[in-house]
């Protein structure tokens, strides 16, 4: 058995920031299912928002205005106290990352460069060309190396151990060696990322299965607002690789098959820089009404960068250009990029407060796997990188405080040993002959159903159908098997273990979407087209019931000084 004061699961920005914040005072271990620099944080392109006022056009910007934009963008579902904390702390976080070596792009006066982003009143998105996630993740990993954080790379957590309201730690598979190891900790922190790959068309890394969220749910931790899924307006057709909002921030146009900048018909003021939920619906409407282009890989519209000129594209959006060339053979300097909306971000997640604490003692979560909630029904571009680092830091502070005030002892090892035994038995069962079902088939069918029936536009009928498909897939999962009993570098085994949790995550998304009979932010019901504050200005909480089925309850939204109003841009 491995012991740590604090166990962090996830080597992305949130996990690394929490580790860096705790490792001086506690014995910290960080488990990551990939090498930390392979985490999905690396893929973030456009930047992170903070009211630094560096841009000449943002001199009277403030964290309060940033908070207002965030709350309005959230369609008033964000908890306002948490949004305030994030926007205020964001300024410090950007400077801190800069002091740790983060190579931000610069303005001519040597300050950190800031660009406009959707749904924001001022250009406040700090960036490094179009590789902002890459530079932030590298900087934090470098910091973790400098501080000597103990990292377990390529360890896959198979289950979270909670008994009698106390978190005991996890069971992990060392995928290089193949051993199943109980890891006991006084505090366990999850920064395990979002659930993008529940959907077929997603910008997310293949590793973003939502497994950590499903694992927490299965262990009894409630989830919040799972029905809120962000669909990014601009993803490359075929692969659905992200084409950053920075493209539109730098001035790119969206055009339909008539060459029309169609956004002028929907949101004439904000145009291409309306928030993501709105732009995605506009694009999908254009496509549905026959004004898109046809391609064997799917229907699409144009993201046109040509008028920006080669110099600006090469300087500000070099990654976008490389991706377009490598994956579709299109050079944005000479041709428009074929794009379609695709799943991008999970607003919902593990229910935690603004201190990242869950209602289970010794269990905390932050970043995309969590729902604080700072994004509410729709996240603004540039707020996710911000959230990861801010709440990684705040979680570390909260854990430090809690452990100092009332230190938790090292928990009893028996529940972990029992859980290890159960996992051993499950793996043995999976490798028995005659189990004909395969996890990849279940995953693929789930993805198609989620994209088709739980996507940008939702109806009761489609959601009911999705639920039926899901119930069938859960049944089929009982017969799932893997080809080999070898435990090291057995990715089929990992995918199969994870699939159990993925199905639970999908279940909570669908149920939340069925219950929420209104349209708010990214959740759009064609049969309930308007926001209904009277009945639905509240969070959805999904908790696993004694029968294994999700039970849904509700929680008030925390309001401070921003009264809900109609969301117009």
């Amino acid at each position, binding site marked *: 058995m491995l012991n740590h004061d604090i166990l962090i699961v996830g080597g992305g920005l949130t996990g690394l920031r929490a580790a860096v914040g705790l490792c001086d005072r506690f014995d910290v271990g960080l488990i990551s299912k*990939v*090498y930390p*620099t*392979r*985490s*999905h944080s*690396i*893929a973030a392109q456009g930047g992170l928002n903070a009211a*630094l006022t560096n841009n000449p056009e943002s001199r009277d910007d403030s964290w309060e205005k940033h908070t207002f934009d965030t709350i309005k963008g959230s369609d008033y579902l964000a908890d306002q106290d948490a949004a305030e904390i994030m926007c205020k702390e964001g300024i410090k976080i*950007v*400077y801190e990352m*800069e*002091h740790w*070596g983060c*190579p*931000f*792009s*610069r*303005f*001519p*006066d*040597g*300050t*950190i460069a800031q660009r406009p982003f959707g749904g924001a009143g001022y250009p406040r998105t700090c960036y*490094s060309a179009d*590789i902002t996630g*890459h*530079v932030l993740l590298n*900087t934090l990993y*470098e*910091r973790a*190396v*400098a501080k000597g954080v103990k990292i377990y790379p390529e360890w896959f957590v198979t289950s979270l151990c909670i008994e009698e309201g106390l978190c005991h730690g996890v069971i992990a598979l060392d995928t*290089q060696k*193949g051993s199943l190891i109980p890891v006991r900790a006084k505090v366990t922190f999850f920064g395990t990322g979002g659930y993008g790959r529940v959907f077929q068309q997603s910008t997310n*890394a*293949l590793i973003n299965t939502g497994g950590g969220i499903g694992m927490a749910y299965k262990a009894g931790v409630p989830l919040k607002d799972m029905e809120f899924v962000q669909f990014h307006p601009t993803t490359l057709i*075929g*692969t659905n*690789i*992200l084409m950053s909002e920075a493209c539109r921030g730098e001035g790119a146009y969206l055009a339909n098959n008539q060459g029309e900048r169609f956004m002028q018909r929907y949101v004439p003021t904000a145009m291409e820089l309306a928030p993501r939920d709105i732009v995605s619906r506009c694009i999908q409407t254009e496509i549905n009404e026959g004004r898109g282009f046809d391609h*064997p*890989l799917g229907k699409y519209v144009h993201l046109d960068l040509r008028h920006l000129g080669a110099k600006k594209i090469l300087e500000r959006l070099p*990654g976008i250009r*490389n*991706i377009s060339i*490598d*994956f*579709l053979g299109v050079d944005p300097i000479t041709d428009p990029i074929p794009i379609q909306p695709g799943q991008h971000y999970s607003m919902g997640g593990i229910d935690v407060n603004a201190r990242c604490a869950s209602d289970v003692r010794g269990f905390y979560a932050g970043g995309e796997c969590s729902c604080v909630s700072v994004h509410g029904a729709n996240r603004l571009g540039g707020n996710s990188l911000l959230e990861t680092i801010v709440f990684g830091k705040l979680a570390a502070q909260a854990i430090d405080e809690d452990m100092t005030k009332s230190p938790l002892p090292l928990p009893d090892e028996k529940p972990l040993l029992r859980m290890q035994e159960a996992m051993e038995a499950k793996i043995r069962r999976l490798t028995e002959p005659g189990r004909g079902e*395969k996890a*990849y088939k279940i995953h693929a069918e789930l993805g198609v159903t989620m994209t088709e029936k739980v996507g940008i536009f939702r109806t009761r009928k489609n959601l009911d159908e999705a639920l039926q498909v899901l119930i069938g897939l859960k049944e089929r999962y009982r017969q799932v098997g*893997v*080809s*080999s009993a*070898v435990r*090291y*570098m*057995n*990715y*089929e085994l990992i995918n199969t273990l994870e699939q159990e949790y993925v199905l639970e995550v999908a279940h909570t998304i669908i149920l939340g979407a069925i219950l929420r009979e209104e349209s708010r932010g990214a959740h759009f019901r064609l049969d309930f087209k308007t926001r209904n504050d009277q009945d639905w200005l509240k969070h959805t909480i999904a908790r696993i019931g004694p029968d294994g089925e999700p039970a849904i309850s509700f929680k008030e939204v925390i309001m401070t000084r921003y009264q809900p109003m109609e969301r117009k841009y």
Partner: protein
Amino acid sequence: MIKANAYTFKILRYDAQDPQSEPCFATYRINVIPGLTVLAVLNRIRDEIDGTLAFRSSCRSAVCGSCAMVINGKLDLACRTQVSAFNTDTIILEPLPNFEVIRDLVVDMTPFWRMYDKIQPYLIRHSPVPEKEILQSEAERLRIDQYVNCILCACCYGACPVLAREPDYIGPAAAAKLERFVLDSRDERPAGVLEILNNEKGVWACDTLFRCIDACPKEVRPTDAIVGLRKAIVKNRFQKMLGKAKDEA
């Protein structure tokens, strides 16, 4: 309808933990539609044909550096390589050279990360921390740009002929990372710290054959870094001889 073309994939397979295992090529025939990447096909092979096939992947968009391997003799990321990019219907996949294989296309990256850790891969400052950002001009930022782009995929490490004969050589990626900090206008590491590379396992080991530059999927030029570090070391030596060295760690 798009027409699928039949491809033959030959994958070098080996299991280091199985004493019976010998490296040998396994052959898979698979129909591929145009536009599919090598990684997409690997996923299909593992899903549909052989669940035991081992390879790493994560972002599938050429930014995370997981899936470096040898593809028809060329070091590259499987996720950004189109199956149709080669003038042949046979694709041969091998693990990264200069590493021990764990299983199939998965190699043991430990030596790579050990070299990375060794060069103090982080910004070192002694000056007081300013309230806001440390100012940096656009030109200063541009100077480190190519090295900032490194995704630590280890293609360069696999391509390096020096590492093939001298496994203790610091290697191109670690050198590029160090140069990224040495050239950073904000970094204050004493020039003397470069002395750890002033030997035949450090910057002088490089044969300047530029294989690393050739192999890099992100247009980083590690040889530039090695040459830059050599110059910095020589300059520091001269200054020391002349009694002008500003700092010693």
